């Protein structure tokens, strides 16, 4: 389905710069990368997490462990949706106990995804801290959740949608403001 693009919020260069800044902020806040783990929420959060791990490695010369979190089983709208979810695997091949976990997502909106992700993480262990990093914060929170690292805050209306497009998933790097398609999830 063709969506109507209203504006390009971040272009390819901007995205690169934003991620660089986020990596620096993360390293600075955590005084290095020694006890750090980066966990991305499927699908694009995982891609961003992978990029952040590389950037942190460039800064600190140390590779933080990377994990992928699938939160389908933790969603609060699981039963309400008629369509069946695709359950994918959570891939966190390390112990998160006492780690400083950077939870990465592409867009922060209602906060429900982050809530589900926190629950999923807690079932996996007891991290020292969980910090939330998002590329875009578009507002309209429904839960008391705030990000620790924000690429860009953009005021949006409900009828709009923020689309993060990444090379690995979509063959291009950019963030678009689009008209929300009908029947949006």
């Amino acid at each position, binding site marked *: 389905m063709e969506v109507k693009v209203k504006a390009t919020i971040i272009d390819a260069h901007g995205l690169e710069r934003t991620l660089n800044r986020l990596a620096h902020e993360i390293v600075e806040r955590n005084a290095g990368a020694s006890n750090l783990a980066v966990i991305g929420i499927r699908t694009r959060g995982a891609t961003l997490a992978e990029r952040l791990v590389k950037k942190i490695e460039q800064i600190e010369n140390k590779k933080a462990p990377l994990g992928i979190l699938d939160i389908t089983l933790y969603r609060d709208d*699981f*039963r309400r949706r*008629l*369509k*069946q979810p695709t*359950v*994918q695997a959570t891939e966190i091949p390390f112990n998160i106990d006492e780690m400083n976990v950077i939870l990465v997502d592409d867009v922060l909106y209602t906060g429900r995804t982050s809530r589900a992700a926190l629950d999923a993480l807690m*079932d*996996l262990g007891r991290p020292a801290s969980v910090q939330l990093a998002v590329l875009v914060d578009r507002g309209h929170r429904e839960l008391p959740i705030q990000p620790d690292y924000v690429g860009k805050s953009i005021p949006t209306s409900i009828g709009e949608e923020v689309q993060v497009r990444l090379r690995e998933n979509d063959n291009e790097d950019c963030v678009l403001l689009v008209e929300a398609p009908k029947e949006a999830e």
Partner: protein
Amino acid sequence: MALSSSHLLGLEGVPAEDITTILDTAKNLKTILDRPIPKVPTLRGITVVNLFFEPSTRTRISFELAEKRLSADTVNFSTSTSSVKKGETLKDTIRNIEAMKIDMVVVRHSAAGVPYFLTQCTDANIINAGDGRHEHPTQALLDMMSLRDKWGTLHGKRVAIIGDVRHSRVAGSNIRGLVTMGAEVMVCGPRTLIPPGIEELGAKVSYNVDEAIEWADALNILRIQLERQEKGLFPSIREYHAEYGITRERLERAKKELIIMHPGPINRGVELDSDVADSDASIILDQVTNGVAVRMAVLVLLSGMDSSQE
């Protein structure tokens, strides 16, 4: 990926895409079982009734664990605690249970067609945990999952089902599922234990177990029940073991790697010898673990389906 039905009554007519979806989902859910807290909140608030009109330990426990791992509320109803013996009809039983507001029913019954019958009486999602000698779809799915884990694919692989095929719902579902997934199936046993027209389901037939071993990449060995001998379907356990028992000598003669499966419980020394059951070729315990994962997958996928909308 949506399944094409809101019930799992059998594998007859279930398309390959659905089976793949279930097996893929099961594979992902299996990782939960190894976590420190092997539980997810997915089916919180969902009530699942395990309706067992026939004694079963393994299947019931496997379903119950799957339900608990998904945080569903579970209620067990089995003949010993039910009013069925007091003459209540199956329809009244299911209507009464439904009136207590339930979402899903896992049913086992000695009569074929009961799961289908229940879909006519209730809006709940129905999962067949074995109906008579008709189908036992989750068993076949876990068998297929175990084989796919080993081979990566089922396509073109050869599975021989050995033993009492006539009375086996495990065979019924395995033949259908495996054929759908592009595997070849042979059934093998004494002729008295092979039902008429089984070829129509897509299975080859052999009465010679060495021939089946020679042909197959995996053996799924069925439990032989003593009462079949009492009914005169084969002369003695001794002769059965001699002719159809899976022994180390038989397998060594075949000079190849064969996967050994058994739905359990095993009659050691009858249909399957201990040294084979416990050998490296055996994936019998993988089957048990996969059973929980497959049942979780079925529960998760069907819980997204509203059967009253159909």
